[in-house]
């Protein structure tokens, strides 16, 4: 058993990347996630596990290195923050199109534009609805604690290779910069080349006696064939939606009202929930852990039970659209948000809840 340590979310993520057997990290500095690459450089995994760590000349280059590494069947990752993740979107589209497994961390900050370096959740649409061109989805995991920053890389790669799909860990400056108690996962060895070839017969590893060449391309000029590729992608996304939804429920058993929030905001909602319960108001919190696949059924089931919803985000209201789609008019869905790097307080959320749902 590993001992409990105190570290930042970004640091825990870097440790976890090495420990889950990753082959390569490619990144570019940007606040508030620079500790990821800094930690990797201090830990020097190339001397222990053989993991490659490379500071690229841009986020664009870094995501294309990830595309190439993933095309070799390697376990590769990158991390960035909102403006940098915008730059990566072209590469993400290619990675999704190539059905390549990889891990991307977005430690969100407030936008639009250069914006602020303070926390935000305004990249929800970009993360779950596309971001790059074409019809595609990433699997999106939303950690809310340093422990989840350590636990999710392994889960992310498991899902990425299971579905041959990019996985995004969508977090924010709060989780990235915060220190908490964390127990790091047990180290796993990197896969051998033989294991990679067996697991990823499609990988461009060099032919290695295969007798035919593997090509990783996303180009298909014949529209009939390109439509077929799209259809297969959509079938895969339906499969992911059926099997991979993850949520955390907090005091929902006897709840008359539900708050819906992800990441650090969900933790603040828990505090707001505690305040409201102290006043005798039965509120619970539904925290989607996967944003794609979105917990559609959990929300629609909850809509049969509770009297109303409050969705809380550090944005102008993005996930609330998905909550409303799945509540489908059955119950009122209110929204409270702060923007541009401002973080809602538990007190504000409780007040907003009372004003909007209890009309107090």
């Amino acid at each position: 058993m590993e001992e409990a340590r105190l570290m930042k979310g970004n640091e825990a993520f870097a440790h976890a990347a090495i420990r889950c057997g990753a082959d390569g990290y490619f990144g570019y500095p940007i606040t508030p996630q620079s500790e990821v690459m800094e930690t990797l450089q201090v830990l020097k995994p190339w001397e222990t596990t053989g993991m490659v760590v490379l500071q690229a000349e841009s986020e664009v280059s870094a995501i294309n290195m990830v595309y190439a590494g993933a095309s070799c069947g390697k376990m590769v990752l990158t991390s960035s923050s909102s403006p940098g993740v915008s730059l990566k979107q072209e590469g993400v589209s290619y990675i999704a199109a190539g059905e390549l497994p990889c891990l991307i961390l977005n430690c969100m900050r407030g936008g639009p534009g250069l914006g602020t370096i303070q926390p935000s959740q305004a990249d929800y649409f970009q993360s779950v609805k596309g971001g790059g061109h074409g019809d595609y989805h990433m699997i999106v995991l939303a950690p809310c604690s340093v422990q989840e920053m350590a636990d999710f890389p392994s889960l992310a790669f498991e899902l990425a290779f299971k579905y041959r799909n990019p996985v995004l860990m969508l977090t924010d400056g709060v989780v990235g910069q915060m220190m908490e108690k964390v127990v790091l996962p047990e180290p796993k060895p990197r896969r051998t080349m033989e294991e990679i070839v067996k697991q990823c017969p499609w990988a461009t590893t060099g032919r290695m006696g295969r007798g035919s060449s593997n090509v990783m391309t996303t180009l298909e000029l014949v529209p009939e064939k390109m439509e077929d590729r799209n259809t297969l992608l959509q079938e895969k996304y339906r499969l992911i939606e059926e099997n991979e939804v993850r949520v955390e429920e907090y005091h929902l058993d006897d709840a008359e009202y539900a708050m819906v929030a992800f990441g650090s905001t969900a933790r603040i909602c828990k505090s707001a929930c505690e305040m409201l319960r102290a006043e005798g108001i039965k509120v619970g919190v539904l925290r989607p852990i996967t944003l794609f696949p979105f917990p559609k059924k959990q929300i629609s089931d909850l809509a049969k039970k509770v009297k109303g919803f409050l969705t809380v985000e550090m944005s102008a209201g993005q996930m609330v659209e998905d909550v409303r789609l799945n509540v489908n008019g059955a119950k009122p869905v209110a929204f409270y948000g702060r923007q541009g790097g401002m973080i809602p307080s538990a007190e504000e959320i409780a007040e907003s809840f009372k004003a909007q749902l209890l009309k107090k």
Partner: protein
Amino acid sequence: MKREIVIAGFGGQGVLSMGKTLAYAGLLQGKEVTWMPAYGPEQRGGTANVTVIVSDDPISSPLLQKYDIVVVLNQPSMDKFESKVKPGGVLIYDPNGMTRRPERKDIRVFEVPATKTAEEAGQQKVFNMFVLGGLLKIDQVVENDFVMLGLKKSLPERHHNLLPANEAALIKGGEIVKEIK
């Protein structure tokens, strides 16, 4: 037990590291802890602050509006955080450079002349340990033994010669802190 604490001062006063020392001691004592800095360029100049929560139970929000204990080490921090002490809570300040004394009457106010004491002892490097010693004297959020254990575990071996000075400052801090009525 749950203590919600903010420590604020100039960048370079060891605000963040003091918070970390406190949080790590809590962790070693088997408690749940969070350490949430106000991050960014302000760390290098103006005011830096860090929110530390030490609790027996899992911690929900790592960010707070009101605090049980507020530690302020410069005037801008006093101006910003005095109003954020919970009624009945604790405000600790170093009088060095302060132009205004706290005004609240519904809280307990303590003075810890850490800058002066550290200078006199030639121990400016462990300034923040005088402050932490003062804090822990007023409210034993964590035990001093765990603070020292944390320092021992987090300092590289080549710096272990600094441990006695840290411990002395921790104890001295408890002696110099006094309540202002």
